[in-house]
């Protein structure tokens, strides 16, 4: 299946806040994009445990679930606070005319 584009936010918005979280209706997922060392990294930000919501700690490079305090490494997507083996889904991104979009072929 061909990659589909799902608009997320404008680049200037991400540069200003360094973190943007959006529920994307057409993708049917919540995506958090962060600006790390000048790179855009986008992941599903639905905690795989019970669907909790994350806070983002850019200094520690971690997502932390507001519900049960599970923590995930932003770069690898792996859980770092317990023995859970799952991983947060990563989305590729592209940028056209200052608009960042998530790419997915699911």
């Amino acid at each position, binding site marked *: 299946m061909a990659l589909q584009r799902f608009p997320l936010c404008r680049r200037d918005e991400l540069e200003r806040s360094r973190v943007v979280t959006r529920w994307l209706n057409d993708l049917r997922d919540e995506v958090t994009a962060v600006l790390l060392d000048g790179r855009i990294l986008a992941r599903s930000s639905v905690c*795989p*445990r*019970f*669907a909790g919501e994350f806070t983002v700690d850019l200094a520690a490079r971690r997502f932390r679930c507001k*519900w049960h305090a599970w923590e995930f490494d932003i770069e690898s997507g792996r859980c770092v606070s*317990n023995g859970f083996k*799952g991983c947060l889904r990563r989305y590729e991104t592209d940028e056209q005319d200052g608009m960042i979009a998530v790419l997915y072929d699911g």
Partner: protein
Amino acid sequence: MKLLQREFVRQVPVSEAVGWWNQWDHEHTLVVHGESWLDGHLLYEDERTCIAFVTIRVPIFSFLTSTATNVNLKYDAHTMYTINLGLFGIPSITKITIHEDPPDHITHHTTYTFFLRGWRRLLAPLMSPMIARWNERVWQEDLPLKLRRQKMLRHGFRDFVGLPEKLADRRHDGPIECRLPIKRLPDSPIETGRLLG
């Protein structure tokens, strides 16, 4: 003996399963309700019973803390009782009923009954607003969890897995279930306090 009773009725657009999940997911209490719940030790749990020691901060008189014994009993499909022996040795029973009608919409009843003996009867005027404050605070803290979980479950979310890989599968129109006890990892912090069973 004086009975002090307070009842709260609320409506929320989620399934009954989400309502029970929220009641029975012990681990979120120390994170989401961290201002009110200071500590908890699970002593025993099965599909309809849970026994725990919990330490709470007393509403309004927040300099006071109370360690209580809590027994949760899932009495039937729609009813749960919490039997509590807490502050000043005052016993209480909290009855919670959840009824879903129409689908994905529940009516949530909470009835607190405190049994006040002897000098403890004098506490009734103080306790009534404390109960209301407690209930409102916990309800407001839990509400976004219920709404979000309901939304994700309707998009095919599975516990300990996440949303489906395929976009076409990110939709679930069937029934939503809640099996007790709530599943958790073997290294869950709540297991460290488990003393019985």
